[in-house]
């Protein structure tokens, strides 16, 4: 599988390393050279320096032949825009955008975009592990 990961923070870099170790062809797009420190030294995949909403950058990353695009920069709006370009313009089969803002994720889901919201997930995990849940009453 050919995967483009936009954003090389902890999530992007870890995902890149994991997918590469499974034998996938990984390209990382990142605008800040310093962020590449998150990648393991052994990372063999391609790295494209540039903004993930820039058409030329995405084409250099090989979006025309990509099987999946994952947008995980630290900016929600960059992620939803990059994901939409991948989905609408390049018809990439699997496209995923991370949004920290649950409301934004709600709206873009309505628009038909596949999204992941770490805020929602974390809230749910914490909530589920609180003892108060069992009795349904406050402390």
């Amino acid at each position: 599988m050919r995967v483009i990961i936009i954003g090389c923070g902890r999530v992007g870099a870890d995902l890149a390393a994991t997918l590469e170790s499974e034998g996938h062809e990984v390209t990382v797009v990142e605008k800040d050279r310093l962020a590449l420190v998150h990648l393991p030294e052994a990372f063999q995949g391609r790295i494209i320096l540039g903004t993930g909403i820039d058409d030329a950058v995405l084409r250099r990353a090989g979006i025309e032949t990509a099987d999946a695009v994952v947008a995980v920069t630290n900016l929600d709006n960059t992620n939803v825009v990059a994901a939409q370009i991948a989905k609408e313009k390049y018809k990439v089969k699997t496209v995923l955008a991370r949004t920290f803002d649950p409301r934004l994720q709600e709206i873009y889901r309505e628009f038909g975009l596949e999204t992941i919201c770490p805020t929602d997930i974390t809230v749910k995990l914490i909530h589920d592990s609180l003892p108060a849940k069992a009795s349904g009453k406050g402390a």
Partner: protein
Amino acid sequence: MYAIIVGGGKIGFYLARTLLDDGHEVLLIEKDADHTHRLEEGLGDVVMHGNGADVRVLERSGIGRADVVVAVTGYDEDNLVVCQMAKRKFGTKRVVARVNNPLNEDTFRMLGIDATVSSTRIIYSLLEEEVGSNTLVCLAALARGRLEIVEVSLSNESPAANKAVKELRLPVDCILMSVIRGDEIIVPRGDTVVKAGDAIVALVRQGGQESLRKAIGAS
């Protein structure tokens, strides 16, 4: 008219000022707190501090009753998201986005935002206009850019000079809308003769610009 402007830079500020002077209701949303205070000094009580790309802020701005939403921040992704939310989530009739990087214009159009303004593009068009008379200046893009209203000037070397409109070898999907000769505006017919120095305004379908330029412009 109630206009919401997102982004309190120079463009946002002067746009708010102009709309207020025309008697419109305006809300200017600015992300930076210090800058919000400065804007308030110049505009009064029509500035809101907040991230205009945040749906909660938009809701509090009364976007439901806004006639227009204009996104003019320095970040294209923010402008695009604001306009998409306004148009598709809140049903705002008219949305206008500033495009900072002219290369992003196509992206905006493809993602449903037709009305874009790019100062780079406008200034470049004006420069082109100054530099050569054989160039085509796009005045407006319609139907997601599939149709353009363009202006082209006739130079002395133009193959079209001193010919009647019906003799011009125009592209198929093209209509001449007007001939501007000095202060005079002529609505052209088949027997209208065009002259060097005329500016011709035409409606042309995407892809026909180059043959129009060749038919009317020089070289």
